[in-house]
């Protein structure tokens, strides 16, 4: 917990000193006892270092550097309690050193001596009456022993003695979180953030773990606070708990008056949003980026707008993305590199919206001004846009003469959607596994597996069904696949098509149709397809509460097709159904 931070800092500082001294004066180490002790400690000779530090302390019992060195050296020897005589001697010598008081509190805490802890804390507080340190270390020593009740009492005593209602608030907040008391934790964090805004990230990270059922009450509690730091805390928590749009609105309404502060607040909120992954969070990101752009100038503003356009696009709001990009691309003040980036993003948005002609026009205008790779990538995306639009002729002509692996893969898809199965197979095989990314390669393999058993060279009705699927019309695709499958024997592609139709029907929520298709795909004369159909069927049955039937289906799969690559998956499904392994 952060209560130990000051002492840790002291230890780190001392370790730094140690490294410096060790590198600076190996010769001197032979003469100066402290340097010798440091040197022994640096070399890992802890037992000798302990002796060396003790020799120093015998002469100077209140030497804080030696006490800290002794404490460090005893820890790796697993003898931390052995420091006690030196601690007592240092205290008897009337030390006023915070470092020694801190070491004493840790020692008494580890030894389980609460009365001594209290006495040392009181002495330290007497030496430094306005400091939080004594109470923080006292609390930390008790918390380290899991005595959270005692730690809380120590911190509250400190708050009362210091006379500041927000004293030690961060430490009390962390204790409250450790005890699962999120309401008190929120109250304490709100107090702490007024004085120490740098704690915000820690506060948000801890409070965000609050159980879902407590969150509405916690938000109501924080909304009653009027302080700007509380407003920001409220926005961060609301964003993390699933309402980033309301969080954005609340935040903007409570922005500080000064422009620089506004930018800081918006940037920090953007950092929170970037850790989230929902359409709303991306929309909130887009709005925050636009708000930042309004408060920036020149290239920085343009960059914010470009990022905002991408966020709008990712949020499924292409019209908003287009608005931002069009303004950016036409703004003469936009730096050329960002303008071309905006144009590329805009073309992508146009393709996604189905405005392929306009995208084509803009892409041609960009030729020569963007990199060849960027141009080729957008060109392929445009081709996919034409395919999705059903404009196979346009895609075909654009692909003419393209012998790259990516071009061949796309040409294979065009051939497939025309129903030219032989041509599709040939082009897919020529493209191999290297076109596009891993998902593209996997999808091509699945398509090859789908058409492999079909003996016909050409099957336009299948092309239509698959094109319908590509265009997102799953109802038409399922119907088309069903019809084509009816014309084929199970072992000659019919079973594969029914398996696909079953998967589509299940994804559409039509479980009755899915079950019918999957049972039809589970045909004895299609042994390559049957295990996959049975596995899919078992999952469907399990998901609809028919565990017994699902188990039976999985057992049939395992026993009938023991060589199938799907057997391990089937066993795992069986374990899940039987409760043999957790559903994680």
């Amino acid at each position: 917990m952060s209560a130990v931070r000051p002492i840790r800092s002291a230890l780190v500082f001392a370790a730094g000193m140690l490294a410096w001294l060790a590198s600076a004066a190996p010769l001197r180490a032979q003469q100066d006892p402290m340097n010798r002790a440091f040197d022994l400690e640096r070399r890992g000779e802890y037992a000798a270092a302990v002796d060396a530090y003790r020799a120093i302390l015998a002469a100077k019992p209140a030497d804080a550097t030696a006490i800290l060195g002794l404490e460090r050296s005893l820890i790796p020897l697993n003898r931390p309690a052995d420091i006690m005589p030196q601690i007592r001697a240092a205290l008897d010598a009337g030390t006023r050193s915070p470092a020694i008081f801190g070491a004493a509190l840790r020692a008494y805490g580890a030894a389980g001596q609460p009365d001594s802890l209290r006495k040392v804390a009181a002495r330290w507080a007497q030496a430094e009456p306005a400091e939080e340190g004594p109470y923080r270390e006292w609390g930390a020593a008790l918390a380290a022993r899991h005595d959270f009740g005692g730690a809380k009492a120590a911190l509250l005593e400190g708050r009362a003695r210091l006379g500041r209602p927000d004293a030690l608030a961060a430490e009390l907040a962390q204790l409250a979180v450790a005890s699962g008391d999120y309401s008190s934790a929120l109250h304490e964090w709100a107090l702490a953030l007024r004085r120490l805004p740098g704690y915000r990230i820690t506060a948000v990270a801890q409070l965000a773990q609050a159980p879902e059922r407590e969150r509405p009450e916690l938000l109501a509690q924080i909304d009653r606070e009027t302080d700007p730091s509380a407003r920001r805390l409220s926005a961060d928590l609301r964003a993390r708990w699933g309402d980033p749009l309301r969080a954005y609105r609340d935040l903007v309404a409570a922005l500080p008056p000064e422009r620089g502060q506004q930018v800081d607040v918006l940037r920090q909120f953007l950092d929170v949003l970037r850790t989230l992954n929902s359409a709303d969070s991306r929309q909130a990101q887009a709005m925050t980026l636009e708000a930042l752009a309004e408060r920036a100038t020149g290239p920085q503003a343009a960059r914010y707008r470009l990022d905002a356009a991408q966020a709008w696009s990712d949020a499924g709001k292409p019209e908003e993305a287009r608005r931002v990009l069009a303004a950016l691309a036409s703004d003469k003040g936009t730096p050329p590199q960002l303008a071309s980036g905006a144009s590329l993003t805009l073309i992508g948005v146009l393709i996604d919206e189905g405005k392929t002609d306009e995208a084509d026009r803009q892409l041609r205008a960009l030729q020569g001004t963007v990199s060849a790779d960027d141009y080729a990538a957008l060109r392929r995306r445009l081709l996919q846009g034409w395919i999705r639009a059903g404009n196979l002729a346009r895609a075909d002509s654009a692909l003419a003469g393209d012998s790259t692996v990516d071009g061949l893969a796309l040409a294979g898809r065009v051939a497939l959607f025309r129903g030219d199965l032989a041509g599709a197979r040939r082009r897919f095989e020529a493209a191999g596994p290297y076109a596009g990314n891993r998902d593209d390669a996997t999808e091509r393999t699945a398509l090859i597996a789908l058409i492999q058993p079909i003996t016909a060279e050409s099957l336009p009705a299948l092309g239509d069904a698959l094109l319908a699927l590509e265009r997102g019309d799953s109802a038409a695709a399922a119907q088309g696949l069903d019809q084509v499958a009816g014309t084929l024997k199970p072992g000659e592609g019919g079973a594969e098509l029914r398996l696909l139709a079953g998967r589509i029907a299940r994804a559409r929520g039509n479980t009755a149709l899915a079950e019918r298709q999957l049972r039809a795909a589970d045909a004895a004369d299609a042994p390559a397809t049957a295990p996959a159909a049975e596995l899919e069927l078992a999952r469907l049955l399990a998901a609809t509460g028919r565990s017994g039937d699902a188990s039976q289906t999985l057992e049939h799969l395992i026993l009938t097709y023991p060589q199938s690559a799907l057997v391990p998956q089937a066993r795992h499904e069986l374990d899940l159904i039987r409760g043999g392994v957790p559903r994680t």
Partner: protein
Amino acid sequence: MKRRDFVRITAAGAAALSPLAPRLLRSPQRMADWLLVPMDDAQSDHLKAYGVCYRALQRGVKAEWLLNYRSGSFLLPMESAAQRDAALAGVSLETIDDARASSIRGEIQDGNMDAIPLEKAPKVAVYAPPNAAPWDDAVTMALDYAGIKYDKVWDAEVMGQQLKKWDWLHLHHEDFTGQYSKFYLSYAGAPWLADMVQQNTAMAHTLGFPNVPAEKRAVAQTIAKFVEGGGFLFAMCAATETLDLALASEGVDIAAAYADGTPMDPDASRKMHWDQALAFHDARLETSPTTSVYSDIDGHQVNSGDRRQPLGSFTLFNFSAKIDPVATMLVQSHRDVIPDFYGLTTSFTRHTLKSSDTVLADEHGAPWVKYIHGERGQGTWTFFGGHDPEDPQHQIGDAPTDLSLHPHSPGYRLILNNVLFPAARKKELKT
């Protein structure tokens, strides 16, 4: 005397003792008369293999446990149900003929091995509160994964004298000192702790006890009687240490004030009645109510801050299979050295072990052991330190362990050895 009898009988001819012997004599030419369940590295799922054998016993099949033969393999008579079961579970089987079975038996005769008849699937009970997280107990996880059915019992069943219904009882991280794992202060306010306190207090009152420590002591004493009467007890984690502390604390207040309203007797360590305990003696009790440590029985002191010891690995002892069949059964494994894992009680310090305890595994050079066994009356107890063999640093709220990712876990095998151990013919269980 019992051990000598055993040696004499086995030396006279283990084959003649075997329930499978008539088959060996009957049809020497038949192929695939036996199913060998290998338990060495040829096995594709060690944990589920125990389930296959257990279910075969449930069907009335007489099996044999081939101690130290290929890491403790099992031999079943040819049976299509077992073949089917193994295929579904992904357990490796080898079909062998009578000649090969005879050859194996000869090999066993000549080496530090033995063939122990397994006759009856033991009835298994797991002691757990009704709302215990199903994935927070290594034994429950092992039983579920292996497909071995069990019943859950808690204080009402124990105090209602119902334990006689079961052969084998498992205890996990229950705190029989009635102090809620000594988390009462450090986790104050946590909902799960509040539930635990409420549930235990209500049960204590229902059963007519003034407080939870008194009720848990009575439960511990009833469990000890179950062992004395011939039951098999297997305990892990804090249940090992706290069971013995509860048994030894008749008339001594070892519970903190939050548990029974009065502070712990500062002289409790001296007043303990160690003759009542199963495994430990002369332990020094932890007096701080805020430290989640009970005594110096545990060597690792995981929740003690500076006293906490790092994890090493433990080594299984190699026993003489023909002289010590019980101990040999409990240490059957395809790995002799196993990485250690923490629990509220991780290990058992050597100086607190009773001289009658059999140490089954220890960490070489360390002042603690990991796995111990002993007898009480007609029954036996086995204590295994630690919480989850595949989650060495287990913390409250951690994700459950998925044993399909650890099908060869040697730590979990030790747990399942204990489940199958009571299936051995009574004669073999007395050494």
